[in-house]
């Protein structure tokens, strides 16, 4: 049984992810921004491809709401860059490659079979989780509308 996804009202945990240029992305990077973390199972898989393509097409609308969207997976930064470039999307990627899945575990979205669950987490500028969503299965793609609902809730 997987652990429970982090719940609204919980301060974001300490974590370290790697940006595509291998620099660190940590809890401190959440401060003063509204952040949407899009956890996805695998770069280049079909549903993840559809998911990032769809979110890319409304990225301007997320930004208009003051939100910055990041894709998070356990793939290596080089793989994430190749995936992002292949799709032609600009959503910045964050890698939980080593120690594998540690940040995903901290957010309660690590699948027992070794990949991130398909999950969404919105964190406010105070680094507190405002909204979270775990897809019923890794093959189910959460609509972009859910993120907009979450941003509305985060702003309330």
């Amino acid at each position, binding site marked *: 049984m997987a652990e429970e996804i982090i719940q609204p009202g919980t301060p974001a945990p300490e974590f370290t992810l790697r940006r595509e240029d291998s620099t660190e992305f940590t809890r401190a990077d959440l401060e003063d921004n509204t952040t949407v973390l899009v956890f996805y199972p695998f770069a280049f898989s079909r549903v993840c491809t559809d998911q990032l393509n*769809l979110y890319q097409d409304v990225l301007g609308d997320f930004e208009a709401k003051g939100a910055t969207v990041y894709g998070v997976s356990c793939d290596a930064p080089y793989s994430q860059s190749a995936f992002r470039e292949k799709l032609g999307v600009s959503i910045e990627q964050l890698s939980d490659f080593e120690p594998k899945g540690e940040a995903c575990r901290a957010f309660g979205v690590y699948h027992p079979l070794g990949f991130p669950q398909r999950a969404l987490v919105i964190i406010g500028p105070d680094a507190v989780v405002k909204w979270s969503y775990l897809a019923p299965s890794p093959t189910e793609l959460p609509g972009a509308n859910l993120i907009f609902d979450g941003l509305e809730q985060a702003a309330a």
Partner: protein
Amino acid sequence: MTDLGSAPVPELSPDDHVRGPAASPLVIEYADFECPYCAILGQRLGDLALRRVFRHFPVRSSHPRAWAAACAAEAAGRQGRFWDMHDLLFADQARLEDPHLWSRARGLGLDLERFDADRRTDAVRQRVRRDFESGVRAGVVTTPTVFADGQVHAGSEALPALTALAPLPSSEVGTEIK
């Protein structure tokens, strides 16, 4: 600011693109002219006794010509030929560059200058975007997605569900979509 939070799929509106017998079950289809599964579904829907509503859901990052094709269909619609252009676009998805769009417009006997001007206007782009946004709000994540009889069916689920709603005169449905 555009609100893209959850909302029900919009009911039929006067400027929706509709075809099929008025008494038949209503199907609202969100589709993309560059999506091969949409082409197959559209072809099969033509065989069913359904009243079809076509709404645009072009996903630019996976289908780079989908928006141009959607705007071309809208521009043809301004000259009363939306469905003709719809059918021609789906009939040959490998040819969606500008000269191919002009060729189709010419073949339909459209005023070519007007067609080319219309498809680049903000009004046409906004019309396509309106459909796309209504799909996002209704939770559309892939194409084709159809709303029928209070249910939503996405991708490969769509054709069997619609066939059940309006059975084919001939029971042969030979094309499978995945």
